[in-house]
């Protein structure tokens, strides 16, 4: 059995890649992808601990998270479409009308 540390390291690495993408990219689609990465890092943890403790609850939650991620993407794509319609691009740093 693979020790849980490896899973945790993998999950941390994926999460950090997601955070890096979120902080550095300007394209809204890449934002969505980065968020997916972060969600899936969490999923890895859930499944890993579930396997480690021999309890399927974690894996069930993993399924829920996937459904949630799908919903999130659906809304995210919708937002990006509206963004494009209003600003004719999907660069998030340009859409700054909602500020002080």
């Amino acid at each position, binding site marked *: 059995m693979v020790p849980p540390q490896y899973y945790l390291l993998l999950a941390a690495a994926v999460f950090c890649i997601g*955070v890096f993408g*979120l*902080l550095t990219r*300007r394209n809204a689609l890449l*934002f969505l992808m980065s968020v997916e990465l972060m969600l899936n890092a969490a999923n890895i943890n859930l499944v890993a601990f579930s396997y480690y403790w021999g309890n399927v609850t974690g894996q069930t939650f993993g399924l829920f998270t996937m459904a949630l991620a799908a919903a999130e993407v659906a809304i995210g794509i919708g937002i990006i479409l509206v963004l494009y319609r209003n600003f004719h691009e999907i660069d*998030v*740093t340009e*859409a*700054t*009308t*909602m*500020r*002080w």
Partner: protein
Amino acid sequence: MAGIFDFGPAIVLLPFLSFLIAVGTALSGRDLLPKGGAIPGIAATAGSLVLSIAMAAAVAGGEVYDETIYTWAVGAVPGSTGLELTFGLLIDPLSSMMLVIVTLVALLVHVFSLGYMNDDGQTGLPRYYAGLGLFTASMLGFVVADNLLMAFMFFELVGLCSYLLIGFHFREPGPPSAAKKAFLVTRFGDYFFLVGVVAVFATFGTAQFVGTEAAPGFPVLAEQALHGEFAANTFLGLAPQAWFTVVGLLVLGGVIGKSAQFPLHTWLPDAMEGPTPVSALIHAATMVAAGVYLVARMYGFYAVSPTALGVIALVGGFTALFAGTMGIVKRELKQVLAYSTISQYGYMMLALGAGGYVAATFHLLTHAFFKALLFLGAGSVILAMHHNENMWDMGGLKDKMPVTYYSFLAGSLALAGIFPFAGFWSKDEILFETLIHGLNGQPLLLIGYVFGLLAVPVTAFYTFRMVFLTFHGDARTEQAESPESVRWNVKGPLAVLGVLATVAGAVNLAPVRVLTGAHVDFLHAWLDGGFSDLTVHHYEEIGPYSSAYIGGEVTTVLLGAAVSLGLALLGLGLAYRLYAVPEPVEHTDKLGAAKDLLYDNYYQDEYQVYLANRVVLPLARAADTFDQGVVDGAVNAVSSVSLFSGSRIRRIQTGVVSNYAALVTLGLTALLVVFGVLGGWLL
């Protein structure tokens, strides 16, 4: 059990009903009622008078009544049984007597108003009668009040009505300003009264004048507290005795304002701007009596505080003389009467302070009659003179208005204290009580006695100066040559009051009792009935005074009466010498600067205005500066800090999503680090 006392509230509510009717008429703006709304007022006061007499008859039969009608607030006070604020009715000998006085004078004044206001073609009559109705209702409510708070509320209502009626002719310059002055000056006194009411509640947990064995009224509680039988809450670290004196003096503030005692008397002469019947009703017979009545009502409380009694006696005695001296130089008829009113209420206060409870009540009774009579007589003269009040424009009215003259003369003889008119008996009793209590080692009372005695010739002098100038000699103007005739509605009340002013002294012939032993001091016996805690002998037991005589009681009585009567005759004789001539001249001019001093009221108004301008106004300004600067300043500083920091911090809302993401990430990292350090995983 439906006794006569169950109709008690009706005494107060009837005039209130007439007030509502008159207000409705005034609001409708049309002439709905005959006589401008006077009829409901006359009917209501007549009804109240009948009820009051019935109550007095029941009280004479030995019945008394003390019932709470309505409890309008109940509060729990820590460490006591709780506080009840109530309206209640207290009918005992004192209040039933006062009810009869007030309703009788109110009825006569209503009738007189028919002649003075209606026949004179005045406008705004519904408003006038509404004021009279509300005044009568609130005065009666004050008289029957069974606790101090209710008394205070009606006391204020009475003051409001006084304001409304003084300012009746509100289009002229004088009356509104006089009304404001009256309101403000009496309010100044009432402020202390209010503090006193709260103090009574805080000290005793009740403000009932009389109570049951289990829950006594506050005068009895004060007495028990001094004997150590009741634990009263005292404040300021004072012993019960000293604290009761403080509370008594606070309540006295309201009394001094309302009863126009020095130094808050300045409003009363100005109040003469009101219509003359109003002056008769409010500023002579009833409202001004409210202060004296209040002291009499809670006399058990004052009786346990010798200091408060001393202050009352001294203020009263001083006011009696002080106001009297101003009366001797005035030119207007009503001004003389105004100062004599202040002076006479000074006598009552002197009597109360000197332990002469019966004497004060007696003088209250006789004064109500003869002063209402004098004011109504003055009203009759003023009406005949087409509202010229200057006595130097009158003269020779004796033969042209005989009813007015003879009734006015009866009132003047009573006021001057000439035997056997009503005023002689009551004033003599006041001086007698003060003297015998003062002789027994009370120097304060002896000073008050000297003041009172000196005021006697002054009173007689200004009274008869007024009579001679008005009615005797030759007519000095055309108006006085052919005065307007007055009708029955003026003469009727004058005749009734004239008879009363002559014979009312018979209700308490105390000196006669001393001389002959016959029990003719009816008022004394009357006031000795009712609730055992409110009787004369109870007050004498708890009071600080005892009597001493100059060579026996009979000698003292005769000596006192002879001295006061002699002084009164001296004043009268002087007035006769100087003014009972065909062509009188202003002899007081010979007084020179002293006359100016008297005519300008010892510059009382000036110094009060000076105090207001130079002391109160800067104080108010300083308070305003403190309020604007410190209190508001602190609040404004807090808000400006918020505003400033808000205007800076909002800059982080850049609208760039990446920045938000960076902040969230930084926050998360910071949180993790903090947890790590606190949890001991890091470092």
